[in-house]
């Protein structure tokens, strides 16, 4: 794949886009396109679908809170990422939560994808979820049981930063809600995920959870304990009134035995004191309260790039795909987040970085690691590995 496999357009102009697509197709007859749109351009999905239909170019894509381009976050335009040959793609809508229906969906999912991964050792299952899907972690557990190490796993959540329901996944003819877009990239050696949060000393137990909702911590209403910890650890008074402004700076960390934590950003407070997070929290998980200063950005970027170098070698002049968590940007602040983006750009020495601000990320901190659903991370990969 050439270095021009990713193209950012600062506005969604059908003629301009059509011209580029025609040029691409002359070189790659079996090409397809992944489109990343910012939430502000969501009305332009139809334009993209019309252009691609007219040119008979397979299209898949998603709408994110913002795009990442040249070290900055952008709320306009569109990224078109070319597949030299359109890979296997499947778009499912309305992901069920009841176990029976979910099993049926996963059966269909794996039956569809398995024939396409037979001959390639290094394939990546690239998943784009609607952030409103509440059982992404469960789906990852099930997919890992079914596909195991036949694929690497990477992905991100699309949707609105306000967490209001919004159709955000699309192909050439549909745009769907509560769905998942699955792409089988091959050959592809996966992605690296990193967040750089360290583990504070004090830990608590999520004694009662349902999917994304932490109902109780240490057998008490979750918010009550959350308030106490914020006060005790960071001297911050979190109230029902300032919850939405403050909580994003104090996400919950799920502690794993290897010392690596999964970040869960509380995005809503229920009447009964439950905390509604982005991503499932398993019952009886050990939790901790995190704070922005706990993030080591330098370490994060170094670890991320070290992992990518391990997978792909020299990254200079490569096309990189990056998903940067919207919650992390809120947590660190726009300025610090921008600094991280620029730091990444500097460290990759001329690599072109395309990406989006995401609402949750999928991956592992090591290659072939257990795939997990994260918040507040950076997920990076090479686009179009040869």
């Amino acid at each position, binding site marked *: 794949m050439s270095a021009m496999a990713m193209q950012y357009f600062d506005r969604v102009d059908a003629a301009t886009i059509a011209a580029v697509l025609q040029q691409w197709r002359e070189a790659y007859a079996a090409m397809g396109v992944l489109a990343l749109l910012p939430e502000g351009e969501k009305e332009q999905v139809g334009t993209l679908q019309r252009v691609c239909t007219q040119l008979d170019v397979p299209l898949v894509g998603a709408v994110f809170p913002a795009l990442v381009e040249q070290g900055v976050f952008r709320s306009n335009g569109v990224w078109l990422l070319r597949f030299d040959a359109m890979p296997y793609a499947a778009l499912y809508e309305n992901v069920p939560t009841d176990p029976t229906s979910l099993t049926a969906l996963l059966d269909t999912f794996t039956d569809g994808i398995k024939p396409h991964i037979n001959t390639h*050792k290094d394939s990546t299952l690239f998943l784009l979820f609607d952030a409103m899907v509440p059982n992404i972690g469960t789906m990852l*557990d099930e997919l*890992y*049981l079914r*596909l*195991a*190490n*036949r694929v690497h796993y990477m992905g991100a959540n699309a949707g609105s930063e306000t967490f209001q329901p919004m159709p955000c996944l699309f192909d050439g003819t549909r745009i769907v809600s509560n769905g998942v877009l699955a792409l089988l990239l091959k050959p592809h050696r996966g992605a690296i995920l990193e967040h750089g949060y360290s583990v504070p000393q004090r*830990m608590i*137990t999520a004694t009662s959870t349902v999917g994304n909702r932490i109902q109780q911590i240490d057998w008490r209403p979750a918010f009550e304990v959350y308030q106490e910890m914020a006060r005790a650890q960071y001297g911050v008074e979190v109230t029902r009134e300032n919850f939405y402004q403050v909580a994003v700076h104090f996400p919950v960390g799920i*502690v*794993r*035995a*290897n*010392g*690596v934590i999964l970040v869960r950003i509380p995005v809503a407070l229920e009447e009964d004191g439950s905390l509604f997070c982005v991503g499932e929290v*398993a*019952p*009886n*998980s*050990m939790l901790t309260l995190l704070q922005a200063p706990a993030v080591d950005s330098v370490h994060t970027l170094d670890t991320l790039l070290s992992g990518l170098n391990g997978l792909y070698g020299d990254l200079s002049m490569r096309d990189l795909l990056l998903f940067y968590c919207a919650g992390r940007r809120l947590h660190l602040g726009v300025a610090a987040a921008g600094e991280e983006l620029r730091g990444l750009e500097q460290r990759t020495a001329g690599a072109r970085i395309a990406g989006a601000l995401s609402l949750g990320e999928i991956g*592992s*901190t*090591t*290659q*072939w*690691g*257990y795939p*997990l659903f994260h918040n507040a991370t950076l997920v990076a990969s090479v686009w179009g590995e040869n």
Partner: protein
Amino acid sequence: MSVLYDVTMVIGGEVAVKPLLTKTLQRLLYHTSFPTGLLFLDIPAAVQGETVAAQLAAAVGDYELGECVGKVIDAPAALLHGQAELQEHSPLLAQLPCSPGTYQTFLRLPIDGMGVILLLAPETPHTELPLTNVFQPVMANLAKAIVLCRNNEAYTADLISERDVARRARAVSEERFHHLAAAAQDAIIMLDDDGRIEYWNPSAERLFGYGREEAMGAQMHDLIAPASYRADFARGFEAFRSSGQGPIVGKVVELEALRKDGSTLPIELSVSAMHLNGRWHAAGIIRDISGRKADEAALAHSAGQLQRALQGVIQAIATTIEKRDPYTAGHQQTTARLATAIATEMGWAPDRIEGLRLGAMIHDIGKIYVPAEILSRPGALTESEFKIIKAHPSVGYDIVKDVEFPWPVAAMILQHHERLDGSGYPAGLVGDEIIPEARILSVADVVEAITSHRPYRPALGVEVGLAEILKFRGTLFEPAVVDACVRIIREHHFSFAPNPE
């Protein structure tokens, strides 16, 4: 240590072996970042040789090894046996049935004598925890949980086995029923508690003309009950819904039913109630009795002919007797009418009254052997003549005893001069030894004889006759018979005049 609390809770929350093992592996991989977990159970003790054949009970994270779950695979003994251990760059891993070179590191976690967990990785995931020690308490719990889950599964399997046996028995029973019902000549219909048809066998299709698809779910009463019966059926069924009881439940009744073409047919209906799932259902077996009804009609016609012939014969005999004995002319007929009236007054069944009438018509047939001059001679009889006269019941009995009447005609003739107190003849029978027909016949005979003219005396009148039976009411004559006789003469004005017929 507290970080493994959720693993312990996962272990404690499962009741079946497979999800227990799978979820335990998933949580261990989640916590350690090892990509692959294998779990072997019931590993044979170390034997000579470098490999052991062990069953792979669960695998997560490796597609090829996942295909081996449930199978016995040869694995290096040194890999499966031993204490908790983290070993890097182990050549042992190359002997596993998966892609060569995939794994370089393993973490072995023995499960307290039950088996072993192996976590595998291409390179050792970063951790600051002493993984070989930190999971030991969890492994002890896992061993106990495996035993409990196995016990639970064995118990559940027993229950399922019992349930399957019951299901199979039920399936066989249902199959038998369907075969029987399909082969039955009678229509078999089942109704739900709304009166809707929920079973309709092939005979029902033939009998009523409705196919199974048409009949299923239809209101049975609307389908095959004539309009004149429907209101009664609806009332009866309403009671049946709440109690399983009804006027025809448990009985065999003859009714009329309606075919699809609008014609009717006589049926014999047998209804039973079934209480299923808290509701009353009705099962009906319906037999077409058109043929039987036709046979019965033919038989009745034939019996009528036979009876009329018999009556003709008896009338002829009676007439013959009366030709020989003009003084008793009409006696038998008048006695027969009076006896019939008494029996009717007493509420006897018509068929029995008919038998009484025929017996009365010839009750004096034995007099055929009494010389005519004795019968018709005026004046008192000598003792020897009276002896001859007294023999007429026995003689009459001998004449008709071999004739197979459907009624006790011979006994009537023999006993019509017997009296309750034993003073009668020829046998001197007492009370219930005398058949009821003879008890009526004796009263009618006496009253008619006294009332009518005789060669040896003039007619004495009906009041004398009544006085005679009332005088001996309860001694010679049955009180109920005497009372009935008095009522029909005094109250109903029985006529002794010859029958105009």
